């Protein structure tokens, strides 16, 4: 059996190796009849071909386009989890943060089941309710990785990363921007933002939410801000009777079985992140209590603006009115005085 030449050239490299001859197998060359050119002055042997291939090398600063450089190893589970969290944070407007204190697997299953039932029963005006419900989920997160993901989302601006010069396969220099979440730029950005004793700016969302990120956490995510669905979720996960009553015992007996109840007792709503703003328990309840969703809010705003307009006109009118009233009263007083003076004069003269 002829020895196979090991040709470890990937398919993508064909432009770079196009100058080498097509016959890469030594046996193939040996079997070929001597061509007239080969028979003449320069005989080209297979060994020459081998030498050419082994001398083939990629540019020193060549970066495969499918594997951009990263600050941390990209193929570990943690890194991929980090990417999952950053994309989750960027795409999800409504996140509720829970602390879970040692729930067992069956308790998690029961809590998720009740949550799904409650969300499925929400009747809201939107047509994409079923899709929204199918994408709502309650998941346990790795707290530290979630913390890093929050930092990246807050402090790393991918549009501001300067391009890097690397070589393409053919050797020419090209400008490439490496601004992904595992990149060195992202790593540097969060490092400089949270470095040292310098406190984070008060208004940054990360500074507000970072005290929450301790201990075992779970998040409930909704792909859209829908107060109706949020209210349903709150009434299951964190019921507070007047506004978010727990599901009725007759309709939802599953909610009251021992496993589900013990699971719910161990879940503790500690905060939320809605539209990139941080809310505490009361804030989350306030959002859940908005009637009619965003349209309801808009109606409220329109009404407020209208009534404010009315108030403004009356206020503006009021100032001039009061001025007119004062002047008028002053005039009447002066007139009276004049008249009084005249009468007094008359009395004196008489």
């Amino acid at each position, binding site marked *: 059996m002829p020895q196979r030449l090991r040709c470890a050239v990937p398919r993508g490299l064909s432009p770079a190796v196009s100058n080498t001859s097509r016959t890469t197998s030594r046996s193939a060359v040996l079997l070929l009849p001597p061509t007239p050119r080969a028979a003449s002055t320069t005989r080209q042997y297979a060994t020459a071909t081998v030498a050419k291939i082994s001398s083939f090398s990629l540019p020193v600063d060549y970066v495969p386009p499918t594997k951009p450089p990263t600050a941390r190893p990209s193929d570990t589970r943690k890194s991929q989890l980090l990417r999952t969290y950053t994309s989750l944070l960027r795409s999800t407007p409504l996140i509720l943060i829970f602390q879970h204190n040692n729930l067992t697997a069956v308790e998690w299953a029961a809590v998720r089941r009740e949550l799904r039932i409650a969300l499925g029963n929400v009747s809201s005006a939107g047509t994409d309710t079923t899709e929204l419900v199918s994408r709502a989920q309650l998941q346990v997160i790795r707290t530290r990785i979630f913390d890093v993901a929050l930092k990246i989302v807050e402090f790393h601006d991918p549009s501001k990363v300067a391009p890097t010069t690397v070589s393409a396969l053919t050797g020419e220099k090209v400008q490439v921007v490496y601004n992904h979440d595992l990149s060195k730029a992202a790593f540097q950005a969060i490092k400089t933002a949270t470095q040292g004793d310098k406190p984070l700016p008060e208004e940054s969302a990360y500074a507000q939410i970072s005290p929450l990120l*301790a*201990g075992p956490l779970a998040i409930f995510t909704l792909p859209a801000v829908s107060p109706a669905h949020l209210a349903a979720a709150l009434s299951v996960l964190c019921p507070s009777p007047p506004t978010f009553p727990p599901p009725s015992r007759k309709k939802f007996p599953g909610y009251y079985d021992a496993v589900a109840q013990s699971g719910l*007792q*161990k879940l503790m709503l*500690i905060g939320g992140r809605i539209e990139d703003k941080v809310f*505490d328990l*009361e804030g989350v309840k306030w959002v859940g209590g908005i009637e009619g969703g965003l349209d309801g809010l808009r109606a409220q705003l329109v009404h407020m603006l209208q009534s404010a307009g009315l108030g403004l006109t009356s206020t503006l009118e009021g100032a001039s009115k009061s001025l007119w009233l004062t002047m008028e009263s002053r005039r009447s007083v002066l007139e009276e005085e004049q008249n009084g003076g005249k009468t007094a004069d008359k009395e004196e003269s008489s």
Partner: protein
Amino acid sequence: MITRFITDVTTRFNPFSVRARPARLFLSFLPPTARSSGMNITTQLLPRTSTEPSTLYIKFKDGKEMNLDCETMGIKSIVEEVDRHSRMLQKEADLAEA
């Protein structure tokens, strides 16, 4: 942490304060069967703006009460403190059994 001898846990904290961490971690150390085995766990969350200190109140089976100050103690010292009494109770229980 020995939790067998704890009957009551009452915490009160503002999760947005850094000093709430010991109280929250203490809650996460309680076993999954804590409530079903007769421990009363009450948690009160304070609003975000409150500056009240976070508190942790623990009552043991022998009636000893502990008011742990989360402002100065970390979770390690809290566990140490609780375990010190629990170990004593454990010793008594073992002697009674034997």
